[in-house]
């Protein structure tokens, strides 16, 4: 009886540990992405809010997912943009790179225009430009006139 109870307890603890988040997550990272100075990232929505900087109003196009990974000592980032509207919309994006001290780790990137079809998801991908990069921001602005 005791063995059965202990077994159930271990199973419960094991499952609870599995639900408790990514056990491979390192300090200063959330969902694989560096958190920088932002410490209160509990969900993907928090992460997107912390990393996204909109220049003015960007109607219809939303960042719906953000993924990060380390490849060859560089940060690889994928950003999913979703056009919620019923027409084609155009936006421009660029990344801003920050080092461990919060200083700019790279010069301003060029704005890159993207056309997104109605009700469609578009993924933009990039790598950090050098190994000094420790954090990033995604800048987004509308190109619809």
């Amino acid at each position, binding site marked *: 009886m005791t063995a059965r109870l202990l077994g159930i307890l271990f199973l419960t603890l094991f499952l609870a540990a599995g639900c408790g988040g990514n056990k491979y997550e390192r300090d200063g990272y959330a969902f694989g992405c560096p958190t920088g100075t932002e410490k209160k990232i509990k969900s993907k929505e928090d992460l997107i809010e912390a990393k996204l900087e909109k220049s003015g109003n960007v109607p219809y196009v939303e960042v719906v997912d953000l993924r990060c990974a380390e*490849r*060859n*000592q*560089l940060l*690889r980032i994928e950003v999913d943009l979703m056009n919620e509207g019923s027409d084609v919309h155009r936006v*421009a994006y*660029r990344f801003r790179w920050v080092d461990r001290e919060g200083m700019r780790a*790279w010069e*301003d*990137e*060029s*704005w*890159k*225009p993207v056309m997104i079809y109605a009700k469609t998801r578009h993924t933009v991908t*990039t*790598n950090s*430009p*050098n*190994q000094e990069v420790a954090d990033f921001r995604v800048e987004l602005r509308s*190109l619809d006139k």
Partner: protein
Amino acid sequence: MKTVTPVRLITTAMICALLTIAGCAKEAVRYGDARGVETVTNEFGSTDLQMIAESMTRSMLNSPVIASNNLPIVTVQDVKNKTSEYIDTKSITDSIRVELQKSGKVRFAVDAAEMRQQIEELQRQQSEYYDSKQSAEIGKMSGAAYRLEGNITSIVKQAKEVKDVYYKFNLQLWNIQSGLLEWTDEKEIRKTTSK
């Protein structure tokens, strides 16, 4: 009292009108964002150049040759312009070279276009005016292990009120000794103008 003749009246009115038009046509000069999206015409522009350079560099940084952290020596060769318009392809390769050099993962050897100046400087330092102990020695230049070359092509379609331009930029990194293609990537850009 003088009377104003119709001819004098018309001449004065014309001068006034010309002065007003000249005033309206005054040019306004403003600084813009060098990194902004440029859509003045659908010919090859600054945004295309910047997007190509950035895309190619970031892709190349992930290639095994560059990612190995062995600081490979690369020489830049021509990017052939196979489009119907004039494109300064040297400007594209210069931008790629700047980004790669700043990444700290690649070193560049002097390329064919810069060779004459390099040799002239080496020879100049051999003259009696230089301290021979501090002069660069002949025969010590480093040869590149890889060469970077590419091409840009375009397809232009034009109907009555629509002009569509498709650019494809292709870049390749070749191993000079083995002749193997170590990395290649391409960037596509489509621009449409409608009246």
